[in-house]
């Protein structure tokens, strides 16, 4: 059933089961996202898609909040822009994000988001944690320094490939992406080397071996293609 709501003053029509994000995207309204990827379930973790909804005293994540008839949504207020800028700065300071030597330079969602949000520097002290790189897999690599814990790879591996090789180890700032019982990726008994995790990664954390600075490109839309094909038997190229 169709519903009508207002986003940034614009009347928008959407389906009953749509999220605010979906409704906005369909209407050509941009909401920044990082942990969301079409084809994967939504977890509401990155908080970039928080929006203001009239009548709610809390900010709501557009990716998981369903629309309601007559909803009035603001996606780009001064307050939201300020919060988003802080969030991206926190991310840059958290691990070791050095675009100049990153394989994903120029193809990185985090980098594009920083540009889009007008970030010039991070006001926070860089934490410089000591993190490793797993190059044991013959085709892929995992650089924890560039990981932002969006868990898109974990969801791609579980929901689309079905192997559930990847999960999160530990918690809080010490959490890491892990393969199986913590063995090197190359020794994983469950990994099918399908590369869906690499497709899903928004940054340079997961990459193809042999790619050098700015060479790592990926087709993230493949995941949604697969999901629609597998679940709905529709091949939308």
């Amino acid at each position: 059933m169709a519903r009508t709501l207002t986003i940034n003053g614009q009347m928008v029509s959407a389906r009953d089961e749509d999220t605010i994000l979906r409704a906005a995207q369909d209407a050509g309204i941009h909401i920044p996202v990082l942990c969301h990827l079409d084809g994967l379930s939504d977890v509401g973790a990155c908080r970039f898609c928080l929006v203001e909804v009239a009548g709610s005293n809390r900010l709501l994540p557009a990716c998981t909040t369903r629309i309601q008839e007559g909803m009035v949504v603001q996606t780009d207020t001064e307050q939201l822009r300020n919060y988003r800028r802080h969030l991206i700065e926190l991310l840059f300071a958290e691990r070791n994000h050095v675009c100049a030597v990153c394989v994903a330079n120029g193809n990185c969602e985090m980098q594009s988001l920083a540009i889009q949000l007008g970030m010039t520097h991070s006001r926070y002290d860089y934490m410089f944690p000591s993190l490793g790189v797993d190059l044991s897999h013959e085709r892929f690599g995992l650089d924890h320094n560039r990981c932002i814990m969006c868990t898109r790879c974990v969801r791609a591996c579980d929901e689309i490939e079905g192997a559930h090789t990847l999960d999160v180890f530990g918690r809080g700032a010490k959490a890491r992406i892990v393969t199986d019982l913590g063995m090197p990726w190359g020794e994983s008994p469950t990994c099918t080397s399908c590369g869906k995790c690499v497709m899903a990664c928004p940054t340079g954390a997961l990459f193809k071996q042999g790619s050098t600075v700015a060479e790592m490109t990926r087709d993230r839309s493949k995941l949604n293609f697969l999901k629609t094909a597998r679940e709905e038997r529709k091949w939308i190229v």
Partner: protein
Amino acid sequence: MNPDELNRIAQAEQAALSRHEHAINVCVGIACHSGGSEQIRKALEAEVKSAGLQGKCLVRGVGCPGLCAEGPLVSVEPLHRSPPQELLYRKVTPADAPALVRSVVREEPLEQLRIDANQPFFTRQLKIVLENCGHMDPERIEDYIARGGYQALIKVLTEMTPQEVIDALSRSGLRGRGGAGFPTGLKWATVAKATPGRYPTYVPPDIQSQKFVICNGDEGDPGAFMDRSVMEGDPHRVLEGMAIAGYAVGARQGFIYVRAEYALAVKRLRTAIRQAQRIGLLGKNIAGTSFTFDVDIRLGAGAFVCGEETALIASIEGGRGLPRPRPPYPAESGLWGCPTLINNVETLANVPPIITKGADWFASIGTEKSKGTKVFALTGQVKRSGLIEVPMGITLREIVFEIGGGVPEGRQFKAVQTGGPSGGCIPADYLDMPVDYESLAKVGSIMGSGGLIVMDDTTDMVEVARFFMDFCMEESCGKCIPCRAGTAQMHHILTKIQQGKATARDLRLLEELSNVVKHTSLCGLGQSAPNPVISTLRYFRHEYERKLVPELERV
């Protein structure tokens, strides 16, 4: 089990009790338990036996009477005198058993161990939730029944419709005791109305329910032990509250989520569940009605975030305790996607007396918007620390200075911290403020689950903020960016301030970041993590500013 059978058990138990002249109650709560109260109980039993007084003196273990700092506690309760003049003894050892039993026989108090039972610590309290603690053996269902236990459950099953139960709860004005203070009746009504399995995911075939009741006993606040005392001292009360909730909302299965660290509470709850199942107060067709309800225990495993309801649900499902965005609320889609009622231990323990004594009685206690009593764990720099239950609306001054006896050794009172890592520090200026949900929120703290920590003038408030931030950082699940990276940065800035390496710019950034973390975090842990910083900045800003260095001197 029908009403008559319940009455028969109660009468038989009361008769057995009244054959004795005195009850010697030994506290077996955790504080006294670890102080050796089990040996004291054995010594007293042996002494009573050797004096040939078995028929006259009953020695029993009881739940916590509250004044934990003076434990192990023993009380002597005359059973045929009214009003009963109870004698309370402090710091008892097994070696005191002979003298204690002699004093009971002679009906003379044992002065050297006696605590004045008329001191404000006891007289200013009002016990509803804790009314049985200290007066019955938590490991015997008969004791609970003799004190009127399970009457409320039988009453709702035989005389009331689920809607009437919910109406009674709504009229009583009871609000959630877990921290946020959501009206309990409204929550119950939402779950009752929800269509079973509206967003069904996967319900394990061995669990036969389409709605659930969860008792949140994951008391994770450091400095809080209220729920522990209730679960240890009166476990049947919690079960009865859950069964009533199950009837009202239409659930067949309940779970109690308890911290694994609370081993004694877990043990007593397991015993209580077995006992209730044995006499048909849990299980199939309770009291001969069609109502079926069972309770299972799930152990927490050391994650503060699991006190948040959606994280708790993830944990019961067997996964990492990660919260998820609400809506949908658990009342619509909770455990395995089914409508789920989650109440805190103390909230559920308030339910049976509301049913038996009436909603109006309950609503007559407390303030306009905060009804009933609240249990607090009063600790820190205070003379008499322990577990207390006071009517809502009492002032902080009465709690700290009358009940707690003020700060020790002529030191000065500085602040009282409520709500643990999610709460704030309240300075002396607000001591005369009434304790209720709204007033506490107005001064930048929260009711919280009931930790109340008194701080004196030697306490460094920046260090207090850093301590709580360290806690929140360690306990952050790491799912959302503001809580994971934000608490780490806040902790980093607070550490810089303590090390004399921070400038005014750092302090400004800390304030801005507090605001970001508060408004953008996914769950209650992150949203409230900045509260200790915000409240200490509000009242003790000079302590922060004193530690700042000019920009040029920064090393």
